[in-house]
């Protein structure tokens, strides 16, 4: 912790907890049948979004994935509007047009979750190009999964960003699964970070369950990017706590796909517990202070649910709105 400021650690803690409590609630709401469509929870991976976004400014950009709630919240997204969007309500970020897999908040540089695996990387690269052309010192971050690292968009984006020296940070959330298929079945390498060498950019591996470690590595990449030195690939090794999508038991019909050791590891390496412990252990804050944050977070999540529930559905006519600019 030596090199992390207490304020930063608490800031990150708030982000992690915010995501955790929000996602737990989303899971409950899904099970209760209150949510349309499908949701992919970010539980177990909070340290990545939180550690990354704490290193960013409001005017920095991120692009996200199908598992995007954590990225929206970590970037500073509003809980009410996020929850309302997941409900499909008019007050949601996208007026109910996007839903869980398509939340964006352009006012804080959150350029959108994305239902297409790998689809966000080219867009983050383009935001990086825009930064370079406009000669600002912003940075652009692309979140993506281990599965997405096998898409052509990964390759083309990293190469483009490196060839053009763009301020882009590619953050691979390696939770070791793409849906139900383990990464070891779909790639013949241990570490996705080695691919960085193929583009002439630095590649780092970081413990993605430790938000402070993530934060430290990302900080380096951010500095590099702001200095005009180009992109970085960061592989955060992490674990998906639950299934690929909520409700998957229904169609798994008793099939299993995770190794018991790996499930055990996902429980042990809980980013919230790890950070909680580090903060107490290194005296950044005491249990009481953390308990206050907990209560505040729980309340805000509960408020978001109330807000979403009480919000109106979009008017049917709005199906024809938000078309041509």
């Amino acid at each position, binding site marked *: 912790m030596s090199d992390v400021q207490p304020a930063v650690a608490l800031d990150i803690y708030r982000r992690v907890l915010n995501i955790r409590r929000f996602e737990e609630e989303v899971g409950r709401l899904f099970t209760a049948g209150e949510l*349309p*469509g*499908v949701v992919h929870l970010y539980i177990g991976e909070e340290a990545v979004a939180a550690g990354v976004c704490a290193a960013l400014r409001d005017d920095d950009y991120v692009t996200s994935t199908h598992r995007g709630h954590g990225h929206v919240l970590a970037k500073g997204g509003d809980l009410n509007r996020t929850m309302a969007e997941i409900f*499909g*309500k008019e007050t949601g970020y*996208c007026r*109910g*047009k*996007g*839903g*869980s*897999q*398509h939340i964006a908040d352009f006012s804080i540089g959150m350029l959108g979750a*994305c*239902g*297409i*695996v*790998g*689809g966000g990387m080219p867009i983050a690269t383009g935001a990086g190009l825009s930064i370079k052309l406009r000669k600002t010192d912003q940075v652009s971050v692309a979140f993506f999964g281990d*599965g*997405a690292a*096998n*898409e*052509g968009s990964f390759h083309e984006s990293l190469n483009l960003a490196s060839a053009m020296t763009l301020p882009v940070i590619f953050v691979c959330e390696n939770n070791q699964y*793409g*849906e*139900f*298929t383990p990464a070891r*079945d*779909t*790639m013949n390498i241990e570490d996705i970070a080695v691919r960085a060498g193929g583009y002439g950019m630095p590649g780092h591996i970081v413990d993605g369950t430790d938000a402070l470690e993530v934060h430290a590595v990302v900080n380096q990449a951010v500095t590099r990017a702001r200095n005009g030195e180009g992109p970085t690939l960061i592989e955060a090794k992490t674990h998906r706590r639950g299934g690929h999508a909520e409700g998957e038991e229904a*169609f*798994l*019909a008793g*099939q299993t*796909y995770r190794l018991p050791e790996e499930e055990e590891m996902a429980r042990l390496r809980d980013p919230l517990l790890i950070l909680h412990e580090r903060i107490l252990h290194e005296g950044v804050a005491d249990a009481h202070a953390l308990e206050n944050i907990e209560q505040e977070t729980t309340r805000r999540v509960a408020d978001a649910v109330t807000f979403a529930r009480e919000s109106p*559905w*979009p008017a*049917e006519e*709005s*199906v*024809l709105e938000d*078309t041509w600019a």
Partner: protein
Amino acid sequence: MPRKASVDAIREALRSEMQRDESVVVMGEDVKLAVFAGTRWLHREFGDERVINTPISELAVAGAGIGAAATGIRPVIDLMFGTFLYLALDQIANQAGAMRYMFGGQTKLPLVFMTVNGSGISAGHHHSQPMHPLFMNMPLIKVIVPSTPYDAKGLLITAIRDDNPVLFLSPLALGSLRGEVPDETYTIPLGEAAIRREGDDVTICTVGAMSRRCMEAARTLAKEGIECEVIDLRTLKPWDKACLLRSVRKTGRFVAVDESFPVCGAASEWAATVAEKAFQHLRAPVQRVSNLDVPLPFSPVLESAAVPTTERIVDAVRRCMQAEPA
């Protein structure tokens, strides 16, 4: 006859052909556990070599299917959601559809691409687009959109035995629909429509998930004394133009109902064909009922407003009936 879900019918078709011909293999993302269940459990019977979980690499997986099909394998490629076909489109349009022709007939390509198609479960735009018109526009790719479990099984078996690239698009909304499906193997020829209901007043042409909605509309209209003939094309390419034209020559009125974006959609093609080939028999303007020309919205209330509803179909038929003869 036993009643089965559409995904089970699909699995039966795959099993039947994998048992019959060992060059048939199934590959795609997560085909073993299988979100859409059509390929689920097949690996237990046929092993990991013939039921292959691939990386998330639509372009290369599609291309690998082509390379395998050109060299002695009959791949069935499951690409999950239709929308993901965009990523594979270069290989499908530039290679699969063109290879035989471009190379002067040197090869055949026994190859099936399977995905779900269209909307209906609040999956949002990236998982809900109807893809069939794009492929109808591409030369030399066959396109199937079944509307019942029975058709799904018979058409898929035919598709697997076909020596050309075939796109098998299951309506997303169909997934858990049950219907009668014999346990035996049977085939349904590609390019043969099913007349779901006979009627003398107006012809409704449709496909896939809209088939049921058209039947609903027809029942409503029957109460008003309007008898609709409902044609479910089942395959969009090749397609049963003759059946459609025969019907329109009888009824003199035509409504095209299709769950796809409206411009250059399937309904456009059917309507144009009728206006070209059955014009002298038409007693009213043709009518099209398609999606609104917007991306598929997430919220259920918006999503259902974006696709053809039974009411919109009923209205279109009524408009047809009210039109003054020319």
